[in-house]
């Protein structure tokens, strides 16, 4: 099962380190990362594999959100299907 993590906000040192540290601790494998600056906002999109997730999804989601708050960014994790259903037929 795959999910998409989005990080939106102001660029700073340690974003990827902070996020990937949480992912490693929860046995989440990173499949792809892309980052861009859209309309002056730093945007990072990560595709991750959560099939070996060692904690509840809700807990991972909370940990990422808290990390986001700590770094002044918005961090969200959502099942990949929501994007696929909207953008792929």
């Amino acid at each position, binding site marked *: 099962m795959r999910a998409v993590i989005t990080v939106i906000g102001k660029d700073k040192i340690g974003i990827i380190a902070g996020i990937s540290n949480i992912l490693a601790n929860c046995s989440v494998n990173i499949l792809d990362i892309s980052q861009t600056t859209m309309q002056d906002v730093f945007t990072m999109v990560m595709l991750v594999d959560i099939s070996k997730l060692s904690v509840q999804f*809700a807990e991972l989601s909370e940990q990422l959100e808290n990390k986001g708050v700590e770094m002044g960014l918005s961090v969200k994790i959502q099942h990949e299907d*929501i994007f696929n259903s909207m*953008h*792929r037929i």
Partner: protein
Amino acid sequence: MLMPFEIIETIKMIQEENLDIRTITMGISLRDCASSSAKESREKIYNKITRLAANLVKVGEDIEKEYGIPIVNKRISVTPISLVAESSDEENYVKFAETLDRAADAVGVNFIGGFSALIQKGYTVGDRKLIASIPEALSSTKKVCSSVNLASTKAGINMDAVREMGHIIKKAAHLSADNGGLACAKLVVFANVPEDNPFMAGAFHGVGEPECVINVGVSGPGVVKSALEKVRGADFETVSETIKKTAFKITRMGQLVAREASRRLGVSFGIVDLSLAPTPTIGDSVAHILEEMGLEKCGTHGTTAALALLNDAVKKGGTMASSSVGGLSGAFIPVSEDAGMIDAVMKGALTIEKLEAMTCVCSVGLDMIVVPGDTSAETISAIIADESAIGVINNKTTAVRIIPAPGKKVGDVVEFGGLLGSGPVMKVNNFSSKDFINRGGRIPAPLNSLRN
């Protein structure tokens, strides 16, 4: 692989443009809960609802968390209670409403619909008792919603029921006078009612429906408006295409959530209702979409055409995105629940007469209209008769949800709170319709050929 801009588009829709799943509604058949003992019947009703819907709220919240899409309401619709309670010898059905209210509380949903009767051609004993119980039932419960279908294209308009509902609405307003007539906000009078509508207050579980079913209502007026902002000044083909594409995307999300909810609950998937349902939040208004098309204020000349285009394009885009579409499907125009509509009424741009014209081309009817407290029962009946006629003649659903707010006059504003919003009191035509309404009987079903 998904492109970052696509992911950002979805996130922007949810975070900035108020895209949400408006409701997951579980339809539950109560046909096996009838009993000659009213007490036993109510026990069966309570047990069945709390058993089948036990996990509804939790599943909704789980999906919300995992997919990152807000699911605003979790609700229940049941078989019209007139059909279930009729076998008992009880004279007053208020206790049935109280049972529904308790069951809704127990499973944590915010509304339960189905304190309803279908009387387009006439009343049964149970229908009469249920309708007489509506004012007390709605003012003594919090979560129960009621609806009455009193006209259809096949049956015509039951004018006895039209007359009675005027009085019922007045009485419901009177009994909930302390809350501005709030009970009336939970009562819808229909023509050609859909039996699988997930939206309140008109939801009930139709007699042709399965044992238990999941219906989902999507929303997203804000998303449509911001899509249209990007094509300012373009011609109507472009406007229509833009709405279709947006409706498609919104509905795909609804379809995903509906499938997932029905899978997790082990209940069959019913329909996705493709409605653009506004809320009082700024940026979640259907009126503002119409204004984005180039109207200075919703309600001015051109509004009906703009709404017709919007409604049709939403259906065209949405139908392609879901395996099964139903319910009311279209644009809602509830005055008190739409910031743009409220503003248009306040500025004098939008009147009841224009709203009536708008209901000819959109999915519902005169919805959440507050009128002066001294409006007569006959005038309310006549408003219902007009709306029913539009529905019956045009083969479409129409409805009236009207609140004669006790003690209020034109220019006052009545606060209902939450999703129900606040309604400016609108002017009604003060000439009498009394002798017309008091005739009673039935307006026959219309001819369906020679259409002009």
